[in-house]
């Protein structure tokens, strides 16, 4: 039985010249778990909003065709009635939560629709979404992952047959991402819900989804079972989707004739173990370890000395973030700061910029204590690019934003320097636009340009690749590599292990307010104890290599192909 049928739907946003959706035909069976993939701006979110009736009821535009949700024509009923059939979780899910406490928010929709058992429904939804026992907690006490689960619970409480999630794990650490997908799987298998996700992470698609739909320029290119879909490497790459690294490696081996052509490409590590079993491991000649063990006699840039920090809490004892932290960062290092959500990554960066003051201990920036220096003076040495790039835009065009710091400091030739930065970050054409109105990748580039405008010696980046699709992430990674000559010391807080393993020279792992590991990528990813304790998910190709041979340390598909012949 088809739970959702989209028949010949064409939709044009008001004022847009060309339609966002073009003659979309789609049937989704009850009980399916389907991923929608496609490059930025191909109409994925628009299609989802068509399915839950926001289009055409709430967002007006040129709408043609019919959408049947559980047999109901979406044009004939109100959005409220459709919400009981199709639940929707936004990408910016925190804006979807409107009530201050957990149970209140989970039962909010049921109460609005005058269901007398609204509290029970809310409780049941919380239970289904793994938030049992948190009924009376306040929203701001929840972690990012839990907030997402609450947004999901709010949708689940109405018991809809279909749940649509727009990029559910974009902002989450791997452990929370696994948690979310585990719960979606449970909702799908135990309660028979139909799940639709917009997803860039093909490893998660391989692990959890039953079907994949490729949307290209507003129309459905194909809908295929996951295995077959991930097999179409060319199609996916043409749409800027990156297949799982294991699949990619097998595909390249096939093209080199080192793997038989007729077989399906593996998409998971267990399938890869089978497919690659005939390859033999060759230890690469240039061993990394010899280079990395050089003595650390470089000058100390930032030094944390016995630092303890705690946050004021609304009730009860202050929450302790760091206790007696000691850490030195050296000039010229490329440091990745990793750890789960809430491990204190952002706090560490805020400490260095003097935004947060330690309760005990001192932080030195090039030998001078941070808390005795005004932020205006610190900015010569250190610059912080926030996780949320919108907070960097304080002027009404990105050109003015980039120029601002140089202009007020009367830096010589600031106009020329601004122009050069715009050119370098490929923003010249966009220079008059407000930063907030740019796309995700452009916004990141603009915030990086603002961050390096004063040529700081230390650059701090908080989650520079969060919320970006993989193509844009690669672009940001290229930009980071380009910037090497501009800044001396760079520190990135991130969950993106591909970024970590391809870029970082030193990895610092935070766990419950302590540095529990600090070293090169081989030392960190090779340390099983740390990887498990913190919930690090190394790049898939690394795990694949490890599964085949214990001494393999390959971080990219290229390295994998060199290691295994």
């Amino acid at each position, binding site marked *: 039985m088809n739970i959702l049928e989209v028949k010949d739907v064409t939709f044009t946003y008001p004022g847009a010249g060309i339609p966002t959706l073009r003659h979309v035909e789609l049937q989704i069976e009850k009980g399916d778990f389907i991923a929608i993939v496609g490059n930025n701006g191909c109409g994925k979110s628009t299609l989802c909003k068509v399915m839950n009736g926001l289009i055409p009821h709430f967002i007006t535009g040129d709408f043609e065709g019919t959408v049947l949700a559980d047999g109901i024509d979406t044009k004939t009923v109100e959005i409220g009635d459709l919400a009981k059939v199709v639940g929707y979780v936004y990408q*910016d899910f925190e804006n979807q939560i409107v009530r201050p406490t957990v149970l*209140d928010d989970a039962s909010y929709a049921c109460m609005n629709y005058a269901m007398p058992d609204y509290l029970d429904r809310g409780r049941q939804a919380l239970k289904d979404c793994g938030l049992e026992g948190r009924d009376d907690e*306040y929203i701001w006490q929840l972690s990012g992952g839990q907030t997402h689960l609450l947004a999901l619970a709010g949708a689940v409480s109405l018991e809809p047959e279909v749940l649509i999630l727009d990029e559910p794990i974009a902002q989450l650490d791997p452990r929370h991402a696994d948690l979310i997908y585990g719960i979606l799987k449970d909702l799908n298998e135990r309660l028979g819900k139909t799940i639709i996700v917009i997803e860039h992470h093909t490893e998660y698609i391989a692990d959890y989804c039953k079907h994949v739909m490729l949307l290209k320029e507003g129309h459905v290119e194909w809908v295929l079972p996951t295995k077959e879909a991930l097999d179409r490497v060319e199609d996916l790459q043409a749409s800027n989707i990156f297949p799982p690294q294991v699949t990619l490696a097998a595909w390249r081996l096939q093209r080199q004739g080192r793997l038989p052509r007729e077989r399906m490409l593996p998409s998971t590590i267990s399938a890869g173990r089978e497919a690659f079993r005939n390859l033999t491991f060759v230890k690469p000649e240039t061993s990394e370890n010899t280079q990395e063990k050089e003595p650390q006699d470089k000058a100390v840039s930032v030094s944390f000395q016995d630092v303890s920090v705690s946050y004021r809490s*609304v*009730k009860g004892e202050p929450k302790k973030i760091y206790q007696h932290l000691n850490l030195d960062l050296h000039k010229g290092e490329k440091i990745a700061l990793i750890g789960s959500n809430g491990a204190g990554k952002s706090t560490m960066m805020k400490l260095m910029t003097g935004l947060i003051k330690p309760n005990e201990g001192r932080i030195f920036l090039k030998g001078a204590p941070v808390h005795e220096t005004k932020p205006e003076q*610190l900015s010569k040495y250190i610059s912080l690019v926030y996780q949320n790039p*919108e*907070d960097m835009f304080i002027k009404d065009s990105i050109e003015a934003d980039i120029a*601002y710091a140089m202009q007020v*400091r009367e830096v010589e030739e600031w106009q020329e320097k601004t122009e050069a930065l715009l050119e370098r970050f490929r923003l010249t054409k966009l220079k008059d636009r407000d930063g907030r109105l740019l796309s995700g990748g452009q916004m990141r580039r603009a915030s990086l340009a603002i961050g390096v405008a004063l040529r700081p010696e230390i650059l701090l980046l908080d989650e520079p690749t969060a919320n970006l699709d993989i193509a844009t992430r690669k672009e940001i990674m290229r930009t980071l590599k380009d910037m090497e000559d501009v800044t001396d010391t760079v520190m990135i807080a991130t969950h993106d292990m591909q970024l970590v393993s391809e870029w970082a020279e030193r990895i610092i792992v935070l766990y419950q307010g302590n540095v529990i590991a600090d070293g090169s990528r081989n030392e960190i990813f090779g340390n099983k104890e740390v990887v498990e304790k913190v919930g690090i998910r190394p790049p898939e190709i690394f795990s694949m290599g490890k599964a085949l041979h214990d001494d393999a340390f390959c971080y990219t598909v290229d390295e994998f192909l060199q290691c295994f012949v």
Partner: protein
Amino acid sequence: MTNMMKKLSENIFDKLSMDFLRNQVLKNAYGNDDTVIAKLDPRILLVWYLFFGLVPWFSNNIIFLGGCFLLVAVTTILAKVAGLVLFLFLVGVFSQTGYLFLVSLFFGGNAETIIPLLVLTLKVATVSLASITVFSGLDPDRLSNGLMWFGCPERLSFSISYAYRILPMLMEEFQNVLLSYRLRGKAPESNGFIGKIKYLVYQIQVIIHSFYPLMLNTAKRSRTTVEALEMRGYRYAATNKEVKKMKLSALKITYDDLLFLAVSFLWMAIVAVVMSYM
């Protein structure tokens, strides 16, 4: 003087940091939900407030006003109101009338000049403390339910609780925007008295400038919120009487509520008796 100025200009960000403000707002709204006052029925408290928020304006009897003041002072203590709110209260009362009181004392004012001022100060203080008890002792949700019972439009009560939901997020964002200005801007040199003043003016300018990006960011966020509210039946509920009844069914008047009214009544009765003997 210079020393004080220095402290003032350096501390305007530090002592009144956004983090501190945010914490105080949250504390004020939700941190005291286990106090005697917070557990009272909001309707009872609103009726109580009707008396202590209005009657003091119409009386000039210093004993009556003093009695009212003592009572609301006690309820304010019971409500465990956040420090910042009390501080603002003190500043407010002082700037309204308190300074006149001091000035008249300084210039050798006698009882005749002081008493009218004392009356006015007591009036303002009583009404303010009664408001603080009710509006900050209750958590916003209970308050809005109480208001709704008295027939205030659903929109008002939703706005109150939504404001408290969104405020911590806004303050965090404001903090970040402010920091953007501070890190990238250039503060004037803060040497000497004039320098301090300039620095203070600069800081205030930065705060004002920061509102513009904050508003734009908020506008961007609210798009999702508006769509989500639509899906979650907000509009439907606003027109449905059933929903209102369901929401309000949680309100119950208990023994404690009656006790609270009785104690307040008894105290005012004692005050009245004392008045008649004076």
